[in-house]
């Protein structure tokens, strides 16, 4: 007979669950609304989602202030772990989602947004990511990861084009493989240490001085492969461009930001202690991965003929750049990761949204793909404002000061220098120079070529509505005036990262 469990409710700290429960409840609410009165306009769901995410954001601010006062909080049988990393990454996740969701209000009607399920799934996905970053427990990480991924596969497929199905299936297959690798890796660590909590694993491993280094390495290989798929680290990146191409531009932009930050946090939690414990092999392999991801993705991006695919490769390269932070593993580099990613989300979401508003419903005969370079030729003549904004995002992605991403890049390179990774720092900046070429290529097409389209520039904002323009405006302002906010951001991030012991 089971003995009754005696746990006081206070010790469970159920408050730690609130930020994740809000989107779940919201998603259920949307489903219920659909149940009672279907055929509602999508604007209702967009606004509801926005409200729910807003409430989520406020609850995050609440836990941030609690963290600020009391430090790291554990809850729900010590499964939940609310530390600075969890809070910062949830800010990014929820914030980017709030920027993303109004993009559903396009001028043309697209298939996926007419289903309320889209928005419910979207909110479930956010809850999944939030679980993933706010725990130390490999099982809960897995649960969060799978919740989020399954929802995301469906979101991609709902775009309802041949390429989207292909993308969704591809992503699903790769995701399943990654999930398998993850569970294998976790299993090995559990077998070694008898625990699924990362800090316990670290303690046990360092207590027996990494006696079973062979098994540790096998476990690390599995986990590395799994995160390689999720973060699209070269050579596990092959799915990324196809999936980005198949999904709608807005969703592709979203995918380049939110799933990755969640995976970065988990990678940071797992690999940081392994690197610091002196597993040299891991450091070498991460070094190689970082350099390969940055460089090869850049080279592939050079030869793309479609802007969206170019941006897909460029976001792989950016992920490699940021992966360097985990390799370096100092407080400065981890803060740089967050700074970089916040600035990156503005710029990248902005640039994908620019593609999104120029999306045609059907491809014209002379166009090979949705966003070929030729489409943007001579854009300055026909749509000067849109061209300038697009150029702004490209310059920011290239790391040109004083636009947003430059500050992230600078801080990241500085963190490499401070920790003695001089060669890495040089590789990082030289990659930025290579990347300059393909960002410039789009600018060249927009500003220096003659228009090919007979259209009078309407095409570049065919989908634009006030909400979309607002989002792009926010992204543009965030990119231009980033330099005014860097100081506060940096102080805030550094404090949170430092207080969580990273």
């Amino acid at each position, binding site marked *: 007979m089971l003995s009754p469990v005696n746990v006081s409710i206070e010790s469970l700290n159920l408050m730690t669950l609130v930020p994740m429960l809000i989107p779940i409840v919201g998603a259920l609410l949307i489903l219920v609304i659909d149940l009672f009165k279907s055929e509602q306009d999508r604007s209702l769901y967009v606004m509801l989602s926005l409200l729910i995410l807003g409430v989520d954001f406020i609850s995050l601010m609440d836990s941030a202030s609690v963290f600020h006062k009391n430090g790291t909080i554990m809850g729900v049988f010590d499964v939940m772990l609310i530390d600075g990393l969890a809070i910062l990454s949830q800010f990014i996740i929820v914030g980017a989602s709030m920027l993303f969701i109004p993009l559903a209000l396009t001028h043309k009607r697209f298939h996926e947004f007419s289903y309320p399920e889209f928005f419910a799934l979207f909110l479930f996905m956010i809850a999944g990511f939030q679980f993933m970053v706010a725990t130390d427990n490999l099982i809960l990480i897995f649960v969060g990861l799978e919740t989020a991924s399954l929802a995301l596969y469906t979101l991609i497929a709902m775009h309802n084009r041949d390429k989207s199905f292909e993308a969704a299936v591809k992503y699903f297959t790769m995701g399943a493989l990654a999930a398998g690798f993850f569970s294998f890796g976790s299993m090995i660590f559990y077998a070694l240490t008898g625990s699924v909590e990362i800090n316990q694993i670290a303690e046990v491993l360092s207590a027996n001085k990494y006696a079973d280094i062979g098994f540790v390495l096998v476990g690390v290989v599995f986990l590395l492969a799994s995160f390689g798929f999720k973060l699209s680290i070269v050579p596990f990146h092959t799915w990324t461009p196809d999936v980005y191409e198949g999904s709608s531009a807005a969703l592709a932009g979203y995918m380049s930001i939110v799933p990755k930050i969640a995976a970065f946090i988990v990678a940071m939690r797992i690999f940081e202690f392994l690197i610091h414990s002196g597993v040299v092999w891991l450091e070498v392999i991460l070094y190689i991965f970082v350099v390969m991801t940055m460089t090869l993705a850049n080279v592939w991006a050079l030869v793309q003929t479609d802007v969206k695919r170019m941006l897909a490769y460029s976001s792989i390269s950016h992920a490699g750049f940021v992966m360097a932070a985990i390799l370096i593993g100092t407080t400065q580099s981890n803060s740089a990761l967050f700074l970089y990613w916040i600035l990156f989300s503005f710029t990248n979401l902005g640039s994908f949204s620019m593609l999104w508003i120029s999306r045609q419903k059907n491809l014209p005969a002379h166009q090979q793909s949705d966003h070929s370079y030729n489409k943007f030729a001579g854009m300055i003549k026909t749509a000067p404002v849109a061209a300038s904004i697009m150029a702004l995002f490209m310059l920011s992605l*290239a790391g040109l000061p004083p636009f947003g991403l430059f500050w992230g890049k600078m801080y990241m*390179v500085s963190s490499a*220098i401070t920790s003695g990774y*001089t060669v890495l720092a040089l590789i990082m900046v030289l990659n930025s120079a290579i990347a300059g070429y393909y960002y*410039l290529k789009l600018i060249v097409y927009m500003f220096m070529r003659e228009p090919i389209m007979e259209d009078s520039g309407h095409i570049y904002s065919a989908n634009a509505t006030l909400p979309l323009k607002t989002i792009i405006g926010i992204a543009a302002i965030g990119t231009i005036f980033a330099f005014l906010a860097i100081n506060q951001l940096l*102080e805030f991030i*550094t404090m949170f990262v430092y207080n969580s012991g990273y």
Partner: protein
Amino acid sequence: MLDHILSILIFFPALAAMLGFVVHKDSMRSYGVAVATIEFALSLWLWFAFDSTVSGMQFMEQIALVPTFGINYIVGVDGISLFIVILASFFTMIGIASLGETKDIKNLIITLLFLQMTMAGVFSALDAIVFYVFWELSLVPMLYIIGAWGGPLRIYASVKFFLYTFAGSLVMLVGMLFMAYFYFQATGEWSFAILDWYRLILPESFQLWLFAAFFMGFAIKVPMFPFHTWLPYAHGQAPTIGSVILAAILLKMGTYAFIRFSLPLFPDASVYFMFPIAILAIIMIIYTAMVAYAQKDIKQVVAYSSVSHMGVIILGTFALNVEGITGSIFLMIAHGVVSGALFFLVGVIYDRRHTKYMSEFGGLAHVMPRYATIFGLMMMASVGLPLTINFVGEFLSLLGFYKQSHILTLLAGTAIIVGAIYMLAAYKKMFFGVVTKEENKNLPDVNKRELIALIPLAIITVWLGIYPKPVLGTINTSVESVVSLMHEKAQTQEAKSRIPNIAKEASAAKNSVEEAH
């Protein structure tokens, strides 16, 4: 208002450019001229208010930007940067005023005003990151000017220009971050302020590496041999106004940065690299002069001659004494005026004939006498004829380097003779002889709009050639403080002996005067 004059100089053109979007395109030219004239008047006021007896920074402003990481908006000018700031606003003014009929003139003027912002920013920034921001930002308007208004190969030329410089300056950024890290290690605080860095004495081995990192950024910008390959393309394809600004101001960013960063921060490394760089500079002078002689295109001749003279500036800078550095700064201004004017002149003939091949011309002196006169004057100045502006700068630069090495200076001196050969040959081909081509018989002489640009440049060329003192004296004061700072900071014996001790020299001079009495 004087307290913030530098910020006004930097951001006024940017603000005006923003508002320029609203101005109707028929009135744009007047708007541009008005704005640029105000800017130039402000910069003249800066000169008027500038105290030329003070060697340090003046009109300093400081606003915290990212204080956690030691980045602050700090600007200020001293004798070294003052005249380049004035020159930049001057060229923007006459550049806009003399603009010919071009397509999209509104966009062009807005771009030029943005460019003026970045130029004023680079030469007055006293924080490395702020400097870097303007330095990189200056690439964008130039990219657009070359890429949108250039010749048939404009896209290749503009992208090459951008990427070359971008790659170099990213390496420089690594150097800057390293420098800030050293400062952090030494003092426990982050700082990117150049004046803070001046106080830092680095071990020689670090200096060498950092010098190399900064060198990458600066040398590509100058451009020094063997990084000069982007420049002929850029000049060849750029529209007249682009070439003028590029040659007159943008290239000076590199040489200016050598004096602002490399010399005072790394005195030992500067001495260590003095001869390698001097040899590069001499190769640059001689080689590009020979290449210039082989050109068929007059614009390429001017472009290569401009590179060649940049070599003399580098040589003067790395003389590491007061004469050399003062001379090189003066030569920067002189080179700006003269090569800017030459590019204007090439533009004049290109507007009329739409060709730049010298073989297409001949006997132009008969058809366009005024044009031939101004071209002759500027060519003589470029060759370095005494009583023209270039002569003063070249003479001082070479004099400075003569103290370091006689042989190398002699080599550089012969290059000036080569310069005379190709310039005179080009002049002969274009202006003397009989008019062979039918099209050339009825070419109109320079018109009023072109004279607006050319007359002031001609006046400056002669005026500063005859009486350079007002400019030279101010430069000299600031250079002396730089050299004495370098002497103090130098650690190796070699460096101490190569960089003269100004205080000692001054007292020695005083003693000798007293003895004479």
